[in-house]
């Protein structure tokens, strides 16, 4: 792969550009590359275009000379959604990581499960979640990087919840039900999906970092993602029952503390932020400085 000029936007970059800019130059070796044409067997039934890698790029590489396995979703192909092949490539990568004893990086960019192959996609999500838990219990890390256009929604949000650590940019969004889904099911009074500022106040990178839903907050820049990933690779791995108990207690506290909040600004106010309305406009460094003084601590178990 080729090195790219610095100043590349993570949000705007393709999955292959992100990999090239994130990993050590020339270190990426792809598994089941596009030349193998391992495409979705379902899309042709709907007369829909296919992509040679099915929107999922997997392989091995090094990051700051640490060997890792890595997966990247192409959010512009079918919204980065999980289908049979797309999901199987990630499941296989995670199982290979368990055999090799490697940490895994997942560059999320997904709306969730592909509607055209929903059963296969849902099965893939559960297989991936199980594979992550197995890998983490064996003492390896799974680090999620979130800052793409599609965000990290649906089953992708569930998978992110299983990771050892999440790194997010302001542009990144993390949730299970997306804005349109909530509005459709609960009405516009509950959530106005066209209010983009509301979407970011409740699902965006700044909010997720403040409530402890993400471990690292970075600028929209591959170099920033790279530095934060290197740092996350240095943290102690592991997953056991006591961590899960601690995590459940943290989530119980979160619900008690913020359960009545109607908006992200209510949450930020409760956190002790004097001017919550100013949060969306803060520059990345100013925001991180403020957030680190009052944010809920993220937890290894999510």
């Amino acid at each position, binding site marked *: *792969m080729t090195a790219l000029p610095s100043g590349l936007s993570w949000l705007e970059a393709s999955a292959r550009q992100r990999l090239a800019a994130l990993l050590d*130059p020339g270190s990426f070796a792809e598994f089941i590359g*596009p030349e193998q044409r391992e495409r979705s067997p379902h899309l*042709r039934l709907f007369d829909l*275009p296919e992509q*040679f890698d099915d929107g999922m790029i997997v392989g091995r590489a090094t990051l700051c000379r640490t060997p890792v396995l890595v997966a990247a979703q192409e959010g*512009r192909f079918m919204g980065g959604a999980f289908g049979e092949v797309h999901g199987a490539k990630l499941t296989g990568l995670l199982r290979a990581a368990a055999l090799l004893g490697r940490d895994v990086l997942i560059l999320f960019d997904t709306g969730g499960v592909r509607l055209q192959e929903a059963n296969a996609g849902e099965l893939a999500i559960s297989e991936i979640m199980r594979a992550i838990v197995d890998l983490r219990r064996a003492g390896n890390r799974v680090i999620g990087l979130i800052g793409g256009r599609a965000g990290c929604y649906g089953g992708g949000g569930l998978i992110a919840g299983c990771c050892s650590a999440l790194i997010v940019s302001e542009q990144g969004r993390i949730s299970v039900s997306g804005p349109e889904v909530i509005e459709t099911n609960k009405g516009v009074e509950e959530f106005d999906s066209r209010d983009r500022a509301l979407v970011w106040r409740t699902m965006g990178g700044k909010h997720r970092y403040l409530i402890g839903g993400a471990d690292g907050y970075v600028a929209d820049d591959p170099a920033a993602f790279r530095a934060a990933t290197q740092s996350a690779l240095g943290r102690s791995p592991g997953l056991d029952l006591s961590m899960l108990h601690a995590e459940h207690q943290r989530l119980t506290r979160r619900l008690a503390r913020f359960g009545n909040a109607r908006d992200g600004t209510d949450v930020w106010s409760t956190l002790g932020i004097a001017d919550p309305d100013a949060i969306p406009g803060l520059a990345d460094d100013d925001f991180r400085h403020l957030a680190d003084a009052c944010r809920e601590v993220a937890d290894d178990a999510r």
Partner: protein
Amino acid sequence: MEHLSYTVTAPRAAGGTRRQAIIGVVASGNLEVLAERVLATDTCTVDIATAARGFAPVWQAVIADFVALRAAGGLRLSINDGGARPDTVALRLAQVVRLIEEPEA
């Protein structure tokens, strides 16, 4: 989907030594092009799967321009198209030829 296939004579062999290159994504108004160096150096094939039916003459014209302008000999080009405009197609074809010329890491 419409499937089109062209085999053309290419006056110039593709540069570099990389075996393959890929560029672009399959999205509305966009396309991906996979180039594989597997043919005789005076031949170029283009296999297209496109969501936009009925544009065979336009594809033919873009490909004729492409092999005349760029060093495409020896390349099997495979395209998944999401309804890209001809200028976008020409850009991606130029990009993939440039990519396969790059020195190997």
